[in-house]
Protein backbone atom coordinates (compact mmCIF):
# COMPACT_ATOMS: atom_id res chain seq x y z
CA UNK A 1 0.00 0.00 0.00
CA UNK A 2 1.39 3.37 -0.96
CA UNK A 3 1.01 6.12 1.53
CA UNK A 4 2.68 9.30 2.66
CA UNK A 5 4.08 8.75 6.14
CA UNK A 6 3.49 11.25 8.89
CA UNK A 7 6.98 11.65 10.32
CA UNK A 8 7.97 13.97 13.14
CA UNK A 9 11.55 15.14 13.55
CA UNK A 10 12.90 16.72 16.70
CA UNK A 11 16.23 18.33 16.03
CA UNK A 12 18.46 20.54 18.06
CA UNK A 13 19.20 24.09 17.07
CA UNK A 14 22.76 23.22 16.11
CA UNK A 15 22.15 20.27 13.82
CA UNK A 16 19.16 21.81 12.04
CA UNK A 17 20.49 25.28 11.28
CA UNK A 18 20.01 24.63 7.60
CA UNK A 19 16.28 24.39 8.21
CA UNK A 20 16.26 28.16 8.44
CA UNK A 21 16.75 28.37 4.74
CA UNK A 22 14.43 27.39 1.93
CA UNK A 23 17.20 25.23 0.52
CA UNK A 24 16.25 22.30 2.74
CA UNK A 25 13.45 21.19 0.44
CA UNK A 26 15.48 22.04 -2.63
CA UNK A 27 18.13 19.62 -1.42
CA UNK A 28 15.60 16.82 -1.33
CA UNK A 29 14.49 16.77 2.28
CA UNK A 30 11.09 15.01 2.38
CA UNK A 31 8.34 17.55 2.75
CA UNK A 32 6.17 15.16 4.78
CA UNK A 33 8.63 15.33 7.69
CA UNK A 34 7.55 17.86 10.25
CA UNK A 35 10.56 19.51 11.81
CA UNK A 36 10.42 20.62 15.43
CA UNK A 37 13.48 22.52 16.51
CA UNK A 38 14.47 22.40 20.15
CA UNK A 39 17.23 24.23 21.93
CA UNK A 40 18.88 20.92 22.83
CA UNK A 41 17.67 17.37 22.29
CA UNK A 42 18.67 16.67 25.89
CA UNK A 43 15.62 18.72 26.82
CA UNK A 44 13.28 16.32 25.02
CA UNK A 45 11.18 14.18 27.28
CA UNK A 46 9.91 10.66 26.60
CA UNK A 47 6.40 12.06 26.79
CA UNK A 48 7.15 14.48 23.95
CA UNK A 49 8.07 11.61 21.65
CA UNK A 50 5.10 9.51 22.78
CA UNK A 51 2.79 12.47 22.25
CA UNK A 52 3.82 12.54 18.60
CA UNK A 53 2.70 8.93 18.27
CA UNK A 54 -0.52 9.74 20.13
CA UNK A 55 -1.14 12.42 17.54
CA UNK A 56 -0.93 9.77 14.86
CA UNK A 57 2.68 9.90 13.70
CA UNK A 58 3.87 6.87 11.76
CA UNK A 59 7.47 7.54 12.71
CA UNK A 60 9.44 9.80 15.01
CA UNK A 61 13.13 10.59 15.01
CA UNK A 62 15.57 12.81 16.79
CA UNK A 63 18.67 14.47 15.38
CA UNK A 64 21.23 15.67 17.90
CA UNK A 65 24.89 16.50 18.02
CA UNK A 66 27.59 13.83 17.80
CA UNK A 67 27.85 11.99 21.12
CA UNK A 68 31.35 13.30 21.80
CA UNK A 69 30.70 16.79 20.47
CA UNK A 70 27.37 17.91 21.87
CA UNK A 71 27.14 21.65 22.35
CA UNK A 72 25.63 20.97 25.76
CA UNK A 73 28.09 18.17 26.56
CA UNK A 74 25.65 15.34 27.19
CA UNK A 75 22.42 16.59 25.65
CA UNK A 76 22.35 14.25 22.67
CA UNK A 77 23.38 11.33 24.86
CA UNK A 78 20.36 11.98 27.08
CA UNK A 79 18.18 12.18 24.00
CA UNK A 80 19.51 8.84 22.77
CA UNK A 81 18.58 7.27 26.11
CA UNK A 82 15.04 8.60 25.81
CA UNK A 83 14.71 7.42 22.24
CA UNK A 84 15.82 3.99 23.42
CA UNK A 85 13.16 4.10 26.15
CA UNK A 86 10.53 4.78 23.49
CA UNK A 87 11.94 1.96 21.34
CA UNK A 88 11.54 -0.43 24.27
CA UNK A 89 8.02 0.83 24.89
CA UNK A 90 7.12 0.21 21.24
CA UNK A 91 8.44 -3.34 21.57
CA UNK A 92 6.22 -3.81 24.62
CA UNK A 93 3.29 -2.51 22.62
CA UNK A 94 4.01 -4.92 19.81
CA UNK A 95 4.94 -2.12 17.43
CA UNK A 96 8.00 -2.04 15.15
CA UNK A 97 10.74 -0.31 17.17
CA UNK A 98 12.19 1.07 13.93
CA UNK A 99 9.42 3.64 13.99
CA UNK A 100 11.58 5.71 16.32
CA UNK A 101 15.24 6.51 15.76
CA UNK A 102 18.13 8.63 16.96
CA UNK A 103 20.72 10.25 14.71
CA UNK A 104 23.89 11.94 15.86
CA UNK A 105 24.94 14.36 13.12
CA UNK A 106 27.43 17.18 12.75
CA UNK A 107 26.32 20.78 12.84
CA UNK A 108 25.53 22.99 9.94
CA UNK A 109 24.40 22.38 6.40
CA UNK A 110 25.47 18.92 5.35
CA UNK A 111 24.11 16.04 3.30
CA UNK A 112 23.79 13.69 6.29
CA UNK A 113 20.82 15.66 7.62
CA UNK A 114 19.05 15.29 4.30
CA UNK A 115 20.04 11.63 4.04
CA UNK A 116 18.71 10.88 7.52
CA UNK A 117 15.35 12.33 6.53
CA UNK A 118 15.26 10.31 3.34
CA UNK A 119 16.29 7.15 5.17
CA UNK A 120 13.60 7.61 7.78
CA UNK A 121 11.01 8.38 5.12
CA UNK A 122 11.93 5.24 3.19
CA UNK A 123 11.95 3.07 6.31
CA UNK A 124 8.56 4.21 7.54
CA UNK A 125 7.18 4.00 4.05
CA UNK A 126 8.17 0.32 3.93
CA UNK A 127 6.73 -0.36 7.39
CA UNK A 128 3.41 1.10 6.36
CA UNK A 129 0.93 3.12 8.39
CA UNK A 130 1.54 3.10 12.12
CA UNK A 131 -0.97 1.54 14.50
CA UNK A 132 -1.66 4.86 16.20
CA UNK A 133 -2.92 6.71 13.16
CA UNK A 134 -6.11 8.40 14.13
CA UNK A 135 -7.83 7.14 11.00
CA UNK A 136 -6.83 3.52 11.48
CA UNK A 137 -8.59 0.84 13.45
CA UNK A 138 -6.34 -1.52 15.38
CA UNK A 139 -6.00 -4.95 13.87
CA UNK A 140 -3.61 -6.63 16.19
CA UNK A 141 -3.45 -7.17 19.89
CA UNK A 142 -0.80 -6.34 22.42
CA UNK A 143 2.07 -8.73 22.56
CA UNK A 144 1.40 -11.21 25.30
CA UNK A 145 -1.94 -9.73 26.20
Amino acid at each position, binding site marked *: MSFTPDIRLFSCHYTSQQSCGAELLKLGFPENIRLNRVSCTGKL*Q*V*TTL*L*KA*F*EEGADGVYVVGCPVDACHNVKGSLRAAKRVEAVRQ*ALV*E*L*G*VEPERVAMYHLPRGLHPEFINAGREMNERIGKLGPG*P*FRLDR*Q*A*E*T*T*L*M*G*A
Partner: protein
Amino acid sequence: MIVAERKPLAEIVDMVKGHDKILVLACRGCVTVCSAGGEREAAILASLIRLGLQKIGSSAEVIEGSLVRQCDKEYIDAIDRWQGQYDAILSTACGVGVNFIANLRPGDNVYPALNTTFFGGSAQQGIWSEQCAGCGDCVLHLTGGLCPVARCAKSLMNGPCGGSVDGRCEIDRDVDCVWQLIYDRMGRLNRREELQAAAPIRDWSAAGHGGPRKQVRKDLTL
Protein backbone atom coordinates in the same frame (compact mmCIF):
# COMPACT_ATOMS: atom_id res chain seq x y z
CA MET B 1 14.07 4.07 49.93
CA ILE B 2 11.56 1.58 48.60
CA VAL B 3 12.66 0.61 45.10
CA ALA B 4 10.20 -0.44 42.43
CA GLU B 5 9.94 -0.90 38.68
CA ARG B 6 7.12 -0.63 36.21
CA LYS B 7 5.16 -3.75 35.41
CA PRO B 8 5.15 -4.97 31.81
CA LEU B 9 2.91 -2.72 29.75
CA ALA B 10 0.74 -5.56 28.46
CA GLU B 11 -0.04 -6.56 32.06
CA ILE B 12 -1.01 -3.00 32.95
CA VAL B 13 -3.16 -2.49 29.87
CA ASP B 14 -4.88 -5.80 30.56
CA MET B 15 -5.70 -4.60 34.10
CA VAL B 16 -7.30 -1.35 33.09
CA LYS B 17 -8.77 -2.07 29.67
CA GLY B 18 -12.31 -2.44 30.98
CA HIS B 19 -12.40 1.03 32.46
CA ASP B 20 -13.49 4.22 30.75
CA LYS B 21 -11.79 6.76 33.00
CA ILE B 22 -8.42 5.96 34.50
CA LEU B 23 -6.51 8.05 37.02
CA VAL B 24 -2.78 7.32 36.87
CA LEU B 25 -1.77 8.36 40.35
CA ALA B 26 1.88 9.15 41.00
CA CYS B 27 3.57 9.16 44.39
CA ARG B 28 6.10 11.86 45.17
CA GLY B 29 7.87 9.68 47.75
CA CYS B 30 10.37 6.87 47.25
CA VAL B 31 9.20 5.87 43.77
CA THR B 32 9.88 9.38 42.53
CA VAL B 33 13.44 9.14 43.82
CA CYS B 34 13.96 5.77 42.13
CA SER B 35 12.35 7.05 38.90
CA ALA B 36 9.68 4.38 38.85
CA GLY B 37 6.45 6.09 39.85
CA GLY B 38 6.83 9.83 40.14
CA GLU B 39 4.99 12.44 38.13
CA ARG B 40 7.28 12.01 35.12
CA GLU B 41 6.84 8.26 35.03
CA ALA B 42 3.08 8.59 35.53
CA ALA B 43 2.88 10.92 32.53
CA ILE B 44 4.83 8.43 30.41
CA LEU B 45 2.64 5.58 31.59
CA ALA B 46 -0.57 7.51 30.88
CA SER B 47 0.63 8.09 27.33
CA LEU B 48 1.61 4.44 26.91
CA ILE B 49 -1.78 3.29 28.17
CA ARG B 50 -3.54 5.52 25.65
CA LEU B 51 -1.33 4.09 22.91
CA GLY B 52 -1.77 0.54 24.19
CA LEU B 53 -5.55 0.85 24.29
CA GLN B 54 -5.58 2.50 20.88
CA LYS B 55 -3.59 -0.40 19.46
CA ILE B 56 -6.14 -2.95 20.65
CA GLY B 57 -8.97 -0.86 19.31
CA SER B 58 -10.04 0.46 22.66
CA SER B 59 -9.86 3.81 24.37
CA ALA B 60 -10.25 5.45 27.71
CA GLU B 61 -9.91 8.85 29.26
CA VAL B 62 -6.58 8.69 31.04
CA ILE B 63 -5.73 11.49 33.43
CA GLU B 64 -2.75 11.98 35.70
CA GLY B 65 -2.46 13.08 39.29
CA SER B 66 -0.02 12.83 42.13
CA LEU B 67 0.04 12.72 45.89
CA VAL B 68 2.80 13.77 48.27
CA ARG B 69 2.79 10.18 49.47
CA GLN B 70 0.37 7.29 49.25
CA CYS B 71 1.23 5.84 52.64
CA ASP B 72 -0.56 8.31 54.91
CA LYS B 73 -4.29 8.73 55.37
CA GLU B 74 -4.39 12.50 54.92
CA TYR B 75 -2.80 12.24 51.50
CA ILE B 76 -5.07 9.39 50.42
CA ASP B 77 -8.04 11.55 51.41
CA ALA B 78 -6.83 14.09 48.86
CA ILE B 79 -7.94 11.73 46.09
CA ASP B 80 -11.34 13.36 46.60
CA ARG B 81 -10.18 16.15 44.29
CA TRP B 82 -10.55 13.78 41.33
CA GLN B 83 -13.95 12.54 42.41
CA GLY B 84 -16.09 11.69 39.40
CA GLN B 85 -13.14 11.86 37.02
CA TYR B 86 -12.13 8.21 37.26
CA ASP B 87 -13.56 4.76 37.63
CA ALA B 88 -10.19 3.16 38.30
CA ILE B 89 -6.99 4.28 39.94
CA LEU B 90 -3.72 2.99 38.58
CA SER B 91 -1.25 3.69 41.34
CA THR B 92 2.41 4.17 40.54
CA ALA B 93 3.26 3.97 44.22
CA CYS B 94 4.84 0.98 45.91
CA GLY B 95 2.61 -1.79 47.21
CA VAL B 96 2.06 0.16 50.40
CA GLY B 97 0.34 2.92 48.46
CA VAL B 98 -1.92 0.50 46.60
CA ASN B 99 -2.89 -1.15 49.89
CA PHE B 100 -3.59 2.20 51.51
CA ILE B 101 -5.92 3.23 48.70
CA ALA B 102 -7.66 -0.15 48.92
CA ASN B 103 -7.92 0.15 52.71
CA LEU B 104 -9.20 3.69 52.79
CA ARG B 105 -11.33 3.88 49.66
CA PRO B 106 -13.48 0.76 49.69
CA GLY B 107 -15.49 1.81 46.66
CA ASP B 108 -12.54 2.54 44.38
CA ASN B 109 -10.92 0.14 41.95
CA VAL B 110 -7.18 0.36 42.42
CA TYR B 111 -4.46 -1.38 40.42
CA PRO B 112 -0.68 -1.56 40.83
CA ALA B 113 1.46 -0.15 38.02
CA LEU B 114 4.69 -1.20 39.70
CA ASN B 115 6.38 -4.25 41.08
CA THR B 116 7.81 -3.29 44.46
CA THR B 117 11.22 -4.86 44.61
CA PHE B 118 13.31 -3.99 47.65
CA PHE B 119 14.64 -1.48 50.20
CA GLY B 120 17.76 -0.10 48.64
CA GLY B 121 19.86 2.78 47.52
CA SER B 122 21.59 4.17 44.47
CA ALA B 123 25.36 4.54 44.61
CA GLN B 124 25.51 5.19 40.88
CA GLN B 125 23.00 6.95 38.65
CA GLY B 126 20.47 4.51 37.26
CA ILE B 127 21.54 1.59 39.43
CA TRP B 128 19.84 0.53 42.65
CA SER B 129 20.78 -2.29 44.97
CA GLU B 130 19.14 -4.00 47.91
CA GLN B 131 20.59 -3.04 51.27
CA CYS B 132 17.97 -3.85 53.90
CA ALA B 133 15.36 -6.57 54.29
CA GLY B 134 13.28 -4.88 56.97
CA CYS B 135 13.72 -7.96 59.14
CA GLY B 136 12.79 -6.21 62.35
CA ASP B 137 15.85 -7.28 64.35
CA CYS B 138 18.83 -5.33 63.08
CA VAL B 139 22.29 -6.88 63.43
CA LEU B 140 24.26 -4.19 61.64
CA HIS B 141 26.13 -3.30 64.84
CA LEU B 142 27.66 -6.80 64.71
CA THR B 143 28.60 -6.76 61.04
CA GLY B 144 30.26 -3.43 60.46
CA GLY B 145 27.09 -1.91 59.05
CA LEU B 146 26.73 -4.41 56.21
CA CYS B 147 23.56 -6.51 56.21
CA PRO B 148 23.86 -10.29 55.95
CA VAL B 149 20.08 -10.69 55.91
CA ALA B 150 19.52 -8.62 52.79
CA ARG B 151 22.85 -9.03 51.05
CA CYS B 152 23.71 -12.69 51.65
CA ALA B 153 21.77 -15.01 49.34
CA LYS B 154 21.28 -17.39 52.26
CA SER B 155 20.84 -14.69 54.91
CA LEU B 156 23.55 -16.42 56.91
CA MET B 157 24.31 -15.12 60.38
CA ASN B 158 27.65 -16.94 60.55
CA GLY B 159 29.12 -16.56 57.10
CA PRO B 160 30.67 -16.90 54.70
CA CYS B 161 29.52 -20.21 53.31
CA GLY B 162 31.59 -22.51 51.14
CA GLY B 163 30.25 -20.88 48.02
CA SER B 164 32.22 -17.69 48.54
CA VAL B 165 34.99 -17.56 45.94
CA ASP B 166 37.33 -14.61 45.45
CA GLY B 167 34.90 -12.39 47.30
CA ARG B 168 31.99 -13.33 45.06
CA CYS B 169 28.80 -15.23 45.76
CA GLU B 170 28.18 -18.65 44.26
CA ILE B 171 24.76 -17.62 42.97
CA ASP B 172 26.29 -15.05 40.64
CA ARG B 173 29.90 -14.05 40.15
CA ASP B 174 28.78 -10.44 39.76
CA VAL B 175 27.41 -10.43 43.30
CA ASP B 176 29.71 -9.53 46.15
CA CYS B 177 29.89 -11.99 49.03
CA VAL B 178 28.70 -9.73 51.81
CA TRP B 179 30.45 -11.89 54.39
CA GLN B 180 33.74 -11.25 52.61
CA LEU B 181 32.90 -7.54 52.69
CA ILE B 182 32.06 -7.82 56.39
CA TYR B 183 35.31 -9.68 57.12
CA ASP B 184 37.40 -7.14 55.20
CA ARG B 185 35.62 -4.16 56.73
CA MET B 186 35.86 -5.45 60.28
CA GLY B 187 39.58 -5.94 59.66
CA ARG B 188 39.98 -2.34 58.54
CA LEU B 189 38.16 -1.24 61.68
CA ASN B 190 40.37 -3.47 63.89
CA ARG B 191 37.24 -5.32 64.99
CA ARG B 192 37.76 -8.62 63.22
CA GLU B 193 37.93 -10.60 66.46
CA GLU B 194 34.29 -9.70 67.11
CA LEU B 195 33.47 -12.10 64.30
CA GLN B 196 34.78 -14.98 66.39
CA ALA B 197 31.54 -14.91 68.38
CA ALA B 198 28.99 -17.35 66.93
CA ALA B 199 25.63 -15.75 66.27
CA PRO B 200 22.89 -17.69 68.03
CA ILE B 201 19.94 -19.25 66.24
CA ARG B 202 17.87 -16.35 65.08
CA ASP B 203 14.29 -15.65 66.02
CA TRP B 204 12.66 -14.66 62.75
CA SER B 205 9.28 -13.76 64.24
CA ALA B 206 10.10 -10.06 63.95
CA ALA B 207 10.67 -10.52 60.21
CA GLY B 208 7.00 -11.07 59.48
CA HIS B 209 6.96 -14.78 60.08
CA GLY B 210 4.47 -14.13 62.87
CA GLY B 211 2.06 -12.46 60.46
CA PRO B 212 1.67 -8.84 59.36
CA ARG B 213 3.62 -6.49 61.55
CA LYS B 214 2.23 -3.47 63.30
CA GLN B 215 3.83 -0.74 65.33
CA VAL B 216 1.98 1.37 67.90
CA ARG B 217 3.62 4.50 69.33
CA LYS B 218 1.50 5.60 72.25
CA ASP B 219 3.45 8.83 72.46
CA LEU B 220 2.14 9.71 69.01
CA THR B 221 -1.37 8.29 68.94
CA LEU B 222 -4.23 10.67 69.68
